[in-house]
């Protein structure tokens, strides 16, 4: 009963979208507005002005730095919300948790006591882990020259942490991050943006402004790299923490 309505609604939505799409400039047309306005300037002057031969990184961190600052704030807020939803008021769930007769099994029951994880998987993950970390570092630090950057490297680092947690167990991976450091790492992206923004305000008078003077080029490059590393550390820590919280819930 619901399905025909949904199908007809989907088709109904398709009609105006297709009509609009048919009126767009042809796919790949060099004279389309997207290529003639601000993009042309980015492509022409982006490398000298933003200091990154990878224009995507340059546009993301330099021209549209405030955009990226808002974005890392969104990830951080998501982490806070996840923590709030999963830890606060969990006592209220206690009586409701097995009202349908389902008893939640703990982690210890789910695993075979004598074979925690296959030794082959254990070996291969431990073998690959350092190379993955090296690759993530390359992606982060080369983000302004080759494809990649803070977000990608952070996601790879976070994925590596998740894989290690699955294979080695929480007890082995939790100590990788000292409890004192953990909050700072989760906030690393936001804090780096604040710090670099303040440095930019000191140098240029504008928050998150990047110096364009040729003599300050090294400062600008350092600011870019600091932002990349901050985003990567923050992103990895936030993703890992979200995973740990969902897994432990």
């Amino acid at each position, binding site marked *: 009963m619901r399905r025909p309505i949904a199908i007809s609604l*989907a088709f109904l939505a*398709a009609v105006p979208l297709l009509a609009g*799409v048919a009126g*767009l400039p042809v796919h*790949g*047309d060099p004279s389309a507005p997207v*290529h003639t306005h601000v993009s042309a300037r980015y492509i022409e002057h982006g490398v000298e002005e933003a200091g990154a031969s990878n224009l995507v990184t340059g*546009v993301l961190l330099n021209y549209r730095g405030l955009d990226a600052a808002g974005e890392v704030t969104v990830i951080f807020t*998501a982490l806070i919300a*996840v923590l709030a939803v999963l830890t606060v008021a969990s006592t209220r769930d206690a009586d409701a948790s097995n009202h349908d007769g389902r008893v939640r099994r703990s982690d210890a029951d789910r695993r075979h006591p004598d074979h925690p994880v296959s030794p082959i998987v254990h070996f291969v993950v431990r073998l690959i882990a350092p190379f993955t970390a090296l690759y993530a570092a390359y992606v982060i630090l080369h983000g302004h020259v080759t494809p990649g950057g803070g977000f990608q490297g952070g996601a790879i680092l976070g994925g590596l942490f998740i894989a290690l947690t699955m294979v080695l167990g929480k007890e082995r991976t939790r100590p990788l991050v000292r409890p004192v450091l953990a909050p700072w790492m989760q906030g690393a992206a936001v804090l780096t943006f604040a710090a670099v923004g303040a440095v930019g305000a000191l140098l240029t008078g504008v928050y998150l402004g990047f110096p364009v003077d040729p003599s300050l080029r090294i400062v600008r490059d350092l600011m870019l790299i600091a932002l990349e590393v901050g985003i990567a550390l923050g992103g990895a820590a936030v993703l890992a923490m979200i995973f740990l919280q969902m897994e432990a819930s």
Partner: protein
Amino acid sequence: MLTALWHNIDYVASVVLFCIGLYVVIAKNNLIKKFLGLNIMETAVFAFIIALGVIEDGQPPIMTGDAHGPFASPLPQTLVLTGIVVAVSTTALALTLIIRVYRRFGTIEADELRELE
């Protein structure tokens, strides 16, 4: 009109994906399934925005020594980069809420939840 659609086949594919996602969101009862549908809609929009920035015989917008144009527009790529990361945050939050709903009510089917009111 049809030839215009044929030349813009990337855009048409995005529209089709968007509508499939819309169908899943409307028709399915399971909250996780609804969220898979919403993710499909998101990626369809991303594919559309990327397709807007494509240029004929374009190179990636990375200015190394011997690279020569035409370059794809970097602006849509930046926007999508931001979008993907925000999308994963919203997905994480939504799944967390779904886990909480399941722990509280023992079901994640939308109509059963509505009856519990």
